[in-house]
């Protein structure tokens, strides 16, 4: 360490998140200080907020906030595993445990906080943990390996996160014990807590409220928790998460003023009672409050730094809005979440069936949003938070903010752009809207990744990433940049434009399309996209142009691990005769196939050699079966429940209707796969509302739902029409499906398509039901064409020796199957060998 003449020294005590942020901000502004950091923990500052990800495979290195040589590169002296033990305010000097004594000009205390551990008898027993550092997690992991029942003491934000960690660690029975009468008492109200509790139960968490622990019982090791109400909970592992305790012991010893309930007192400049000593982060007590989140800590770091550099920035409290991450249930609270009538007007929306609870508090004049709570669905969190923080004037029906179809209301995009320039978008990194827009306007950034690099926004907790995305797109649109959704480098058109052009020019082949409308030789993106368009327009046999199809479509089967294929015959509506079952069994045996009932109510035969596919299909077809198109972007299954033919509740014959629908739309190619379901009554055993289109029987007819999705981002379908008869239902479906086929981007499921649609569900309803575009008849005719040109692709292949030839592994040894295919035994069947 070289100290230049006249160079001032800043010593930072604590190398946690906020201490690190202070250093990062300082060296970015100036290198004129001699910067020294003492850390008690053995490693460089890491991302405590994402600590739990340590259990999901992240390593300590992944969590680290800086590269290994960062401190050195920035001429910062870092002492790790060496806590400061004494501060001498008079001499402006610190002494560390390893015996280092150094003088400072400014001292910054960033000692954070520790877990608050209540004084309960037995607290010292083996198997009791706190949840704060990587070391804590390592110890928990080791102990969890031999534990069956675990509990978390404390049902707050961190407690629930710790509980999730116990589940992830494989603890069979996990409990949350809370002293208060509700969960997350700082964030949510009791109605919200009730709902959250039910949701957590579904995740396997048992919640016990109003529980006052009197003793941690057991011998050397923990065996149970005993409560004041004389009850007992048997556990072999306990995580204490009863709150945090600011680490003020060092400050207290030095004679700095601290709060009665802990915390180093600071003013709005982050100065402690000694003007050369600052305190920031979770150890600092400002206006009688400890801020237990990173964003306010980062703001404090900025203020302290600014003050040391003789600036005028001050701290005036910070928004404590939070969104719970990881647990599998959305929970968020923002602004003034607890204010009640008569100080405000409160609107509550609750759907116990779906597990959604939303509350918003509105100023009495109805103009402003004050705060609220979201449970079960917190998609609106970012926008609501912005509405509060920027005092945006509310729409005339504020309930729209939490009610109604949150399908693809165009308001989202527009909403972001209406935020003031000073709106704080990323609170972790304190990035304003103007900075993001500037990055787009001045630096030409066009992606979220670009924004992250350029402004650091979105690199903290990541909660603002959706907002950033909308802002980037919104700004580009404002600049008149037409954000064109081009397919790839070979075609400057969106899928919809290309479809129109292909029809206009009556283009029938990929090569013709490329010559006329594209450039280059094409690629794996535009080939299948054009293939799908060609099918949607002409419905020719897809295997005629086999080399432009995705692998599954090229060989009319899904490729498997190891290079074999799967075979899925159509089982419309899930109905299958005993004879067909027997044939499936015989074929599977003959060709050594693994059989499984799929999640779509049919049977999948796995592990077929490419060479065997035509023979397998030939045998299935002889028994009257046909392709199930499990490989295509086309209709998969129409799931059905047994309905009125057998079920005592069924109001209509859902099986017959499902079969009718499945046969009607089978084989039609679409931008992505299509799934459907028909339920015989509201009990919804066919899960119709999870499908691209779903039908539910009512006393008066059918309810038709559209644009649902399972998959990684599930979304319920929305009601398109209610109590309609079968004919009307089919008419709407014809229009709906053709409209989707014509206008969706490649590989976009109906749910995403709707989410992106300007005007959302109300627009879609208008097009389909009220024919607002005047295209209903055309849509019906077009889909009629597709239906009337249906062919079972496999029967064409089976009956055409030329096409059959395509199903060989070696062109120069057509009889020989791929010798590298290998199976392993599994229960009574086979499976693909591991890769």
């Amino acid at each position, binding site marked *: 360490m070289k100290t230049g003449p006249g160079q001032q020294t800043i010593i930072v005590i604590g190398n946690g998140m906020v201490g690190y942020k202070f250093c990062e901000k300082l060296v970015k502004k100036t290198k004129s200080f001699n910067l020294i950091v003492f850390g008690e923990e053995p490693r460089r500052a890491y991302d405590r907020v994402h600590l739990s990800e340590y259990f999901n495979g992240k390593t300590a290195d992944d969590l680290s906030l800086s590269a290994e040589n960062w401190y050195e590169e920035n001429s910062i002296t870092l002492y790790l595993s060496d806590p400061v033990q004494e501060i001498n305010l008079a001499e402006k000097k610190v002494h560390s445990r390893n015996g280092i004594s150094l003088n400072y000009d400014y001292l910054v205390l960033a000692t954070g906080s520790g877990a608050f551990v209540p004084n309960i008898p037995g607290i010292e027993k083996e198997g009791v943990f706190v949840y704060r550092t990587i070391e804590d997690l390592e110890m928990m992991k080791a102990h969890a390996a031999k534990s069956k029942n675990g509990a978390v003491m404390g049902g707050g934000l961190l407690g629930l996160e710790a509980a999730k960690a116990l589940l992830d660690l494989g603890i069979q029975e996990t409990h949350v014990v809370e002293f208060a009468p509700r969960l997350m008492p700082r964030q949510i109200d009791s109605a919200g807590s009730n709902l959250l509790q039910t949701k957590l139960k579904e995740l396997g968490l048992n919640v016990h409220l109003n529980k006052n622990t009197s003793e941690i019982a057991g011998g050397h090791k923990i065996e149970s928790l005993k409560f004041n109400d004389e009850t007992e909970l048997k556990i072999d592992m306990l995580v204490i998460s009863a709150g945090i305790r600011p680490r003020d012991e060092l400050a207290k010893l030095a004679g700095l003023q601290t709060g009665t309930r802990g915390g180093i007192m600071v003013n709005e400049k982050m100065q402690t009672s000694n003007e050369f000593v600052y305190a920031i982060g979770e150890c600092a007590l400002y206006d009688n409050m400890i801020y237990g989140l990173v964003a306010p800590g980062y703001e404090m770091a900025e203020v302290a730094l600014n003050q040391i550099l003789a600036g005028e920035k001050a701290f005036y409290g910070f928004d404590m809005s939070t969104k719970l991450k990881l647990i599998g249930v959305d929970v968020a609270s923002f602004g003034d979440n607890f204010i009640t009538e008569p100080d405000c007007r409160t609107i509550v929306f609750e759907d116990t069936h779906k597990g959604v609870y939303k509350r918003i508090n509105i100023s009495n004049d109805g103009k402003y949003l004050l705060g609220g709570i979201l449970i079960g669905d917190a998609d609106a969190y970012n926008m609501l938070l912005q509405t509060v923080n920027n005092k945006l004037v509310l729409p005339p029906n504020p309930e729209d903010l939490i009610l109604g179809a949150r399908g693809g209301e165009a308001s989202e995009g527009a909403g972001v752009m209406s935020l003031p320039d000073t709106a704080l978008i990323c609170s972790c990194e304190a990035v304003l809207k103007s900075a993001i827009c500037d990055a787009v306007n001045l630096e030409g950034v066009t992606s979220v990744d670009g924004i992250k690099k350029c402004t650091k926004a979105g690199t903290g907790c990541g909660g603002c990433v959706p907002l950033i995305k909308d802002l980037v797109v919104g700004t580009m649109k404002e600049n008149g940049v037409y954000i064109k959704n081009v397919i790839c480098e070979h075609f400057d058109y969106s899928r919809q434009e290309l479809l129109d052009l292909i029809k206009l020019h009556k283009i029938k082949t990929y090569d013709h399309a490329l010559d006329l409308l594209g450039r280059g*030789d*094409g690629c794996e993106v535009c080939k299948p996209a054009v293939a799908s368009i060609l099918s949607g327009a002409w419905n020719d046999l897809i295997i005629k142009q086999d*080399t*432009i199809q995705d692998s599954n479509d090229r060989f009319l089967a899904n490729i498997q691990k190891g290079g074999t294929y799967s075979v899925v015959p159509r089982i419309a509506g899930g109905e299958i005769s005993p004879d067909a079952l027997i044939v499936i069994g015989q074929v599977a045996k003959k060709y050594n196939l693994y059989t499984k009932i799929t999640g779509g109510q049919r049977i999948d035969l796995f592990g077929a050699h490419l060479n065997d596919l035509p023979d397998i299909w030939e045998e299935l077809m002889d028994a009257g079966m046909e392709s199930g198109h499990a490989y295509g972007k086309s209709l998969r299954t129409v799931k059905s429940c047994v309905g009125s033919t057998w079920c005592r509740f069924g109001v209509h014959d859902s099986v017959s209707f499902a079969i009718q629908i499945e046969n009607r739309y089978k084989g039609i190619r679409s931008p992505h796969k299509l799934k459907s379901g028909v339920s015989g009554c509201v009990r919804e055993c066919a899960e119709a509302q999870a499908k691209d289109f779903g039908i539910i029987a009512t006393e008066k007819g059918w309810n038709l739902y559209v644009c649902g999705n399972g998959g990684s981002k599930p979304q319920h379908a929305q009601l398109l029409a209610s109590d309609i008869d079968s004919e009307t239902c089919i008419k709407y479906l014809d229009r709906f499906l053709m409209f989707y086929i014509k206008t969706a981007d490649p590989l976009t499921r109906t749910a995403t398509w709707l989410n992106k649609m300007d005007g959302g569900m109300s627009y879609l309803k208008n097009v389909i039901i009220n024919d607002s575009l005047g295209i209903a008849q055309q849509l019906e005719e077009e889909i009629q064409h597709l239906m009337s040109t249906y062919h079972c692709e496999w029967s064409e292949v089976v009956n055409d020796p030329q096409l059959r030839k395509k199903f060989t592994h070696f062109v120069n040894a057509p009889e020989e199957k791929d010798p590298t295919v290998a199976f392993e035994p599994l229960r009574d069947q086979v499976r693909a060998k591991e*890769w």
Partner: protein
Amino acid sequence: METEVSTIINWFLACATNDVPENGGACVKYRDEQIAIFNFSRRKEWYATQNLCPHKQQMVLSRGMIGSTGDAMEPKVACPFHKKTFSLITGECLNAEECAIKTYPVKVQDGRVYIGVE
């Protein structure tokens, strides 16, 4: 690709030109090896590479889709499994994630396709 490579000692007769689909690939057995052969008919070019995709060791590159990328129109093949793409000329992985694949010279004479093997 009809390149003259002096080290090639052995031109192995792989198949007839019409055995390989236009703008697509097929797999050829050579001793115990599997070689993917591509008929890039749009460019009137032929390419050959190992059939094994280095990503998950799958014998499938011949079933991949071909195309080209960039201003230089680098010919490439995309593995059907996870769409890693490889240059048909150098064998280099264009997503820069996997190791390169082996490529072989190809020549076509009288409707027959030959692959150059060492």
